């Protein structure tokens, strides 16, 4: 099975360049320990919602964009960001939730997409050409446009008959 997803979107490339230019890379690295609570193993960086990390005096300011407007995971993610930074001795942490730039699945990293596939969630595809995460077949059908969370819909493979979650392209 080919788990390598190498397509780098322009949206991700610009996030990556921004992160690489940061003068405080260690803080970004700390946040690589914060995961989406509904998608175990997928970091907020790989999901694409971590937008900025900055430091002012002794306070850390973290900026995230929510995925779906009603996604209840945001509150948990804020707490997790704070907890992780506290662990590394940062006493003052502020998490800002901003709507602009609006999050899209194109902000997701190739690593994030590969991870989704490894836990049998089909990663988002432009044109919603959904590929079965088990047998790679493109011969799939929608079972339900909404799945277990706002960001997913339910599909089934017509070849291997596996039912699976698809992370909607958004």
């Amino acid at each position: 099975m080919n788990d390598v997803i190498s397509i780098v979107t322009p949206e991700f490339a610009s996030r990556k360049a921004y992160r690489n230019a940061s003068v405080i890379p260690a803080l970004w690295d700390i946040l690589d320990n914060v995961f989406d609570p509904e998608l175990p193993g997928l970091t907020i960086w790989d999901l694409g919602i971590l937008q900025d990390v900055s430091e002012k005096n002794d306070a850390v300011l973290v900026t995230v964009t929510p995925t779906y407007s009603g996604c209840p995971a945001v509150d948990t993610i804020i707490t997790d960001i704070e907890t992780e930074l506290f662990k590394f001795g940062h006493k003052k942490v502020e998490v800002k939730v901003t709507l602009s730039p609006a999050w899209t699945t194109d902000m997701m990293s190739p690593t994030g997409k590969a991870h989704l596939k490894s836990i049998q969630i089909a990663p988002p595809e432009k044109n919603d050409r959904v590929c079965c995460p088990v047998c790679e077949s493109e011969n799939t059908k929608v079972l339900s446009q909404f799945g277990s969370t706002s960001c997913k819909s339910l599909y089934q493979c017509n070849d291997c008959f596996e039912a699976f979650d698809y992370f909607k392209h958004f």
Partner: protein
Amino acid sequence: MNDKQQNTIRFLIGLGDDSVVLSHRLSEWCSNAPYLEEDIALSNIALDYIGRARMFYQYAVELEGNKRTEDDIAYLRNERQYTNLLIHELPINDFAFTMVRQYFLDVFYCEYLKLLCDSSDEQISAIANKAVKESRYHLKRSQPWITQLAEGTSESKERIQLALDELENFVGEMFLMEDWELMLVDSGIAVDRKNLEANWNSEVQAFLNKSEMCFPDSQLQIRGGRNGIHTEHLGHMLSEMQYIQRSMPGLEW
């Protein structure tokens, strides 16, 4: 605070009310929908609308100078203080009615929010950008349902027609503007809903014609929502939605 700021807050709360009221109605299907996937879908859409309401309320609260919270707005106002357009508050009725209303609103919001993305207010534009994508996705679901029901059994067809007959009286209000809303249109903050009416009508009419359904052009336009005048249904809905905050003030999860 000047008139423009006051009207902007009123405008945001109106949009938030539209969303929170519809969200509550949709959530009434939770555990009652025809089958599991449909149940999950309606609850998910309800969640999108709750998120939308929160974004509008939070911004209103910020403009007010944080004198109250988003929860105060949702839970501690009575029906005369709610300013949603009436179509959102009508009871869910049967599944056909819920889907026809959803289809009507999805068509409406796809266009309305698209224009609101160009609002001169950056935060309103950001909210619209987020919400319009969700509405487009909702439309992909409500539209096929109308076809399926309208071209289904004689009973499903009849129920769709009953829903159309009931809803026609509430469609007019979607395109009527209050004077204070028009002031915001002049300053580029709001969108004139009146301008959407012709396109909405032709799109919906053409779509319904394909399934040989007709949407009668009603002369009756029940209005009042934006000024706090509601159908009898809203008060009953709020009494349920606000029950916990009213009986145990300040309770938090």
